[in-house]
């Protein structure tokens, strides 16, 4: 036994010596062995692994994110997940190769028809011969099933509320009926302008009842059961990649050029860039923050910055204990002053560095009014698009003067602190919370320094992600980093989150002490803000609806508790060899019309 062991040890050492004298060739051979094993070994998912290398000329290898939480159209709420889904499913409505809304499963985009009971209905007619990618027929009943499934609270879909525009949502009985195989009738209590766009949203895409019911949530985890109706079908799904091949049953298969797409899962920025530079990936959806300037200069035709429906902002807790003792008006003035002291242009150009746009309102850019103008072109109390304060770099000094004047007013009325030479003295310390992340922490440091120049003591507390979310949601903070991405092209997606009962009401409007404060035209938060949002949701008149949404934003900004910093942008790198690709304002990446030159 001992001899044997000694002998083995010697053998191992000899092997090692050989490896030592010729390290590179030895390890190369060794590792090819490893790879060979991986190819032959039966994988847990039974999907072939390592069959797609960048050398395969017919496949586009792309990256839009890490291994997704889910690719079930109903359950997904992530941007990368949505990109995978839109390649495998298609709704009644979708996007054509110019990125414009177009009928997909439906033959045309229907118009709203008033019903006898004062509601509106949309009647969709489906194309002939629609099929799932397993060749079976897809009917209007599949849409009815899928929509009801996604809206059902028991399904526990993050985006189940996307169906709240449909009649019967609140009672759990969605008013959607397949009157025959090719006709789907949908009833809405009031017409909403973005309903057609919703029909193109992943949550509204059809899923196949029998595979879903037979496999539960697991149906969307395996290639064999992941049946869709879109331009591509999944042929491999491992923790490394999602392999898609052209779906021959897709109604528009003639216009799908590329036979195979591989979405490699990876979310390490350095690794992404290395893979992009050496040609492994033709597309990456994220780049290292420090490399942004270099990449923009080095790859002017491949580095892209697109607008995104979202706002990066700072939220104040309206019931902040640190400011107890000040009146609600004084608190609002303090918050407004702190907001005015932020030089947003500096944050965008010196910290963000990715083409972010300084924000003068909370509702992001990229949202369209009934007259075709942008919502932000009309924001601000005068509806002139100047916002709620100036973000012009030349007006910053004036903003600061205004801020100091506000603070002097509060100092005089409260007597709790003084303002000397433009600096507050004796003001209670504030704590700014943020989660980890170089960008977030850089903004925190900037705010600490800037507010510090005006005498404020700001402690920055960096919290672990889940803890941070919890603290912010429960209102156990003074000031917090925050961000919001819109769900669809309508400002309501930025505004209904601030009603009292919303799960995203991080500023705690209408709660605790703030619940009884009647400072909004003599009304409380519930009577003013919540009421306006309810009116918006019940409105049939687009102009009135948008005016109400501007009013809601006025109230929101009047609190000073929502302090927008910039509008988000989406950065990606797309190889020059790809043509026909486009990205949507929601950040979805469309490759179904793309090909490699």
């Amino acid at each position, binding site marked *: 036994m001992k001899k044997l062991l*000694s002998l083995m040890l010697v053998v191992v*050492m000899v092997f090692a010596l050989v*490896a030592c004298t010729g390290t590179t060739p030895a390890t190369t051979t060794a590792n090819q062995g*490893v*790879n060979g094993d991986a190819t032959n070994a039966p994988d847990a998912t039974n999907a072939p692994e390592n069959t797609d290398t960048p050398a395969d000329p017919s496949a586009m290898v792309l990256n839009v994110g890490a291994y997704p939480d*889910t690719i079930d159209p109903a359950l997904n709420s992530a941007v990368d997940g949505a990109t995978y889904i839109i390649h495998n499913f298609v709704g009644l409505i979708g996007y054509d190769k110019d990125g414009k809304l177009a009928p997909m499963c439906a033959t045309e985009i229907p118009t709203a028809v008033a019903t006898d009971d004062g509601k509106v209905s949309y009647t969709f007619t489906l194309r002939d011969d629609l099929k799932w990618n397993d060749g079976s027929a897809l009917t209007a009943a599949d849409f009815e099933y899928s929509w009801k499934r996604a809206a059902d609270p028991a*399904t526990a879909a993050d985006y189940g509320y996307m169906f709240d525009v449909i009649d019967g949502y609140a009672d759990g009985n969605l008013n959607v009926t397949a009157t025959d195989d090719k006709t789907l009738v949908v009833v809405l209590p009031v017409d909403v302008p973005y309903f057609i766009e919703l029909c193109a949203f992943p949550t509204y895409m059809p899923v196949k009842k029998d595979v879903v019911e037979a496999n*539960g949530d697991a149906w969307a985890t395996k290639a064999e059961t992941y049946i869709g109706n879109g331009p591509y079908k999944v042929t491999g799904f491992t*923790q490394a990649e999602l392999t898609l091949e052209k779906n021959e049953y897709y109604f528009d298969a003639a216009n799908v050029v590329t036979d195979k797409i591989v979405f490699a899962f990876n979310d390490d920025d350095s*690794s992404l860039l290395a893979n992009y530079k050496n040609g492994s990936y033709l597309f990456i959806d994220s780049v290292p923050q420090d490399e942004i300037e270099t990449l923009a200069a080095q790859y002017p035709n491949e580095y892209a910055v697109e607008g995104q429906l979202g706002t990066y902002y700072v939220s104040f807790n309206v019931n902040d204990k640190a400011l107890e003792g000040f009146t609600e008006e004084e608190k609002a003035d303090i918050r407004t002053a702190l907001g005015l002291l932020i030089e947003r242009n500096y944050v965008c150009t010196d910290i963000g560095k990715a083409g972010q746009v300084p924000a003068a309102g909370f509702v992001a850019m990229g949202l369209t009014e009934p007259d075709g103008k942008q919502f932000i072109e009309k924001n601000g109390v005068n509806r002139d698009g100047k916002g709620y304060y100036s973000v012009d770099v030349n007006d910053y000094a004036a903003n600061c003067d205004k801020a100091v004047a506000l603070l002097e007013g509060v100092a005089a009325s409260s007597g709790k602190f003084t303002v000397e030479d433009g600096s507050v003295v004796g003001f209670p310390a504030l704590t700014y919370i943020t989660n980890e992340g170089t960008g977030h922490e850089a903004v925190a440091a900037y705010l600490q320094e800037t507010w510090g120049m005006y005498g404020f003591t700001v402690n920055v507390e960096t919290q672990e992600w889940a803890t941070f979310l919890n603290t912010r949601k429960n209102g156990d903070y003074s000031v917090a980093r925050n961000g919001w991405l819109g769900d669809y092209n309508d400002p309501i997606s930025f505004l209904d989150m601030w009603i009292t009962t919303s799960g995203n009401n991080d500023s705690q409007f209408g709660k605790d002490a703030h619940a009884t404060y009647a400072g909004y035209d003599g009304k409380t938060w519930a009577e003013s803000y919540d009421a306006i949002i309810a009116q918006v949701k019940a409105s049939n008149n687009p102009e009135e609806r948008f005016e109400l949404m501007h009013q809601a934003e006025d109230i929101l900004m009047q609190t000073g508790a929502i302090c927008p910093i910039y509008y988000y942008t989406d950065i990606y790198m797309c190889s020059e060899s790809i043509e026909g690709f486009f990205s949507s304002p929601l950040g979805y990446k469309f490759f179904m019309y793309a090909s490699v030159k």
Partner: protein
Amino acid sequence: MDSKLALYIVKRVLLAVFTVFLVITITFFVMRAIPGGPFLAEKSPSAEVMAALEAKYGLDKPLWEQYITYLSDLIHGDFGPSIKNRGRNVIDLIMEGFTISAKNGLWAAGIAIAIGLTLGAIAAVFHNKWIDKLIMVLTSALVAMPSFVIATILLLLFCIVWPVLPANGNTEGGLILPIVSLALYPMSYITRLTRSSMLDVMGQDYIRTARAKGVSNTKVIFKHALKNAVTPVITYVGPMIAFILTGSLVVEKVFAVPGLGDYFFSSITNRDYPMVMGTTIFLATLMVIMTLISDILYKVFDPRVDLG
């Protein structure tokens, strides 16, 4: 001795089960005590959806009840579903990742042990010669460098500056760099351990006696010195293998290897309770087994060790 060894193993296995049980209990309650939950996100789901989700995963029940349910499921081999990855079972995710991580880890461990022992022995034999000094300088540097530095340097050198190897661990030849990154630290550590232990052994009387009796130098080194010097290395190698097999977060991230490493970290960030439990139990069990094996090997290499 055999029956004594058997008794020892039985005792150790029982102790191991108890250790793992303690780990389970502590992890279960500590995870629940920290703030946050699995369903929180930048966009929170509605209260209704939240309630449906909590009911679905049994998180609405009292904590002690959840604990009992978890233990009883576990005894039946059920690690439960992942909360984060809807529709996936914890054990499937772990095994998928482990298959890949373990393959890399075995290569890395093999390379680390083989080269580490060799270099250590060479350094000891040529004590204070230039080769010893070179080996020591190199291994000191590698031991001091954190894995993200090593991995990033390798990525830069071999994928960008001199692009001979793929940066994507999921392609042909893509596992070379992750394996090398994983192997360098334990290799250097083993080199240093072997060297100092060899030096210690080579100063012993019995080596001098062997030499005096005219035993050849090679035989002295391999049969007498290295064999006896290997005991401290075994102590290190056991737990090292457990760690290396379960993957490295950093190395797997940098080289896009779809292994297990990431789950140890991400499951905690996501408050994916069943996944946290699964990965913890998995690592704890592996660790306990490896420690047990190295203790037994101890006895094999050094009969003086009393296992009692």
